[in-house]
């Protein structure tokens, strides 16, 4: 089921992802609350599906925000949808950076800009924390799930292990465990 709805126009996808891209400040994870809100509001991607999209996007190389756009766009309208979503995510950045490189060369040291961002930064941090709480409510139904969550969090945040290693190890272990369990069940 790659294509969800032929009726969603590519311009609409582009527009929604351009809005998301324009307000993704401070890395791919800052995109998650906005994408969750926009997708949920339109019924495009369910709250259950989003953690899968993030997990698989994080397992692929590249920029997380772009990977999520490619993935989500494809779910909406196939390859065309993923191109529209990716262009949407990229184009606001592209234009803003070009303007800074060409015109506002002292953007970084502008006192008004500094004050605005002093207000935005702490807000973005809590916006990243909120989807964690929401997703935990949905997906962490066992003590086992909480153990994985807490271990991942500690290893990445405090021991500074790259997320990709954790995901790779989890993929290998969980594949083996599930495979052996399936074998055992089919053997009965």
């Amino acid at each position, binding site marked *: 089921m790659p294509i969800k709805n032929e009726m969603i126009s590519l311009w609409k996808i582009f527009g929604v992802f351009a809005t998301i891209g324009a307000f993704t400040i401070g890395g791919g994870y800052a995109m998650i609350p906005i994408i969750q809100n926009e997708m949920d509001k339109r019924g495009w991607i369910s709250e259950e599906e989003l953690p899968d999209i993030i997990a698989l996007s994080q397992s692929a190389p590249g920029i997380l925000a772009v990977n999520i756009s490619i993935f989500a766009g494809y779910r909406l309208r196939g390859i065309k949808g993923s191109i529209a979503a990716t262009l949407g995510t990229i184009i606001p950045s592209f234009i803003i950076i070009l303007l800074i490189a*060409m015109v506002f060369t002292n953007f970084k040291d502008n006192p008004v800009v500094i004050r605005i961002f002093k207000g935005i*930064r702490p807000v973005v941090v809590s916006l990243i924390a909120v989807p964690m709480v929401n997703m935990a409510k949905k997906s962490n139904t066992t003590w086992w799930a909480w153990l994985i969550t*807490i271990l991942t969090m500690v290893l990445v945040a405090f021991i500074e292990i790259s997320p990709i290693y954790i995901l790779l190890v989890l993929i290998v272990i969980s594949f083996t465990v599930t495979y052996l369990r399936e074998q055992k069940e089919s053997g009965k």
Partner: protein
Amino acid sequence: MITIFIQLFITFFVIGIFTFGGGYAMLSLIQAQVVVAHAWIDESTFTDIVAISQMTPGPIGINCATYVGYDVLAKTGAGHLLCILGSLSATVAVVLPSFIIVLAIVKMYAKLNHNAIFEGVMSWLRPAVVGLIGAAAIILIFNSTWSGTPLFSQYDIKVVSENFPDWKSWALFAGAFISSLWFKANPILIIILGGIAGLLIY
């Protein structure tokens, strides 16, 4: 002139392939290629580019690629149009590998969605994603560093002062958290209000 475009494209394509773990991981790869290997841009310019990439809206990796692509051409004395083409080739190149790989994954996902083994793997990855998002928030609040030798290492945790310089920033954090979690306020609105608040209180 055409060789610089090809070099930019290849460099950023390779960076796109080897970036695992998001935009911040990409910054060090861009630095290794653009500052050290090719010496297209000096260290202090790159530091400025990173700061701007973090401050401006949009994915950090895209911002950085766009800016570096522009600057590399600007350094050769090229005009605005060629510089924009430089941005374009770096940005397209950095996205292209993801595009191919993620499309392959998405097709696999559609096929395996109800497969028992795939579902088993995902049931481990979903809570890990919750942890990754938690870690992303923690990293923006606390800065942990290891120092010293492996045997006598010292571990320090400090609040990230750029994000939380004073009590007012904690108040903004709490306000945004409550309005988002309990009142389900639109995150874009919260960001705009945060910006306005910053302008008013600082």
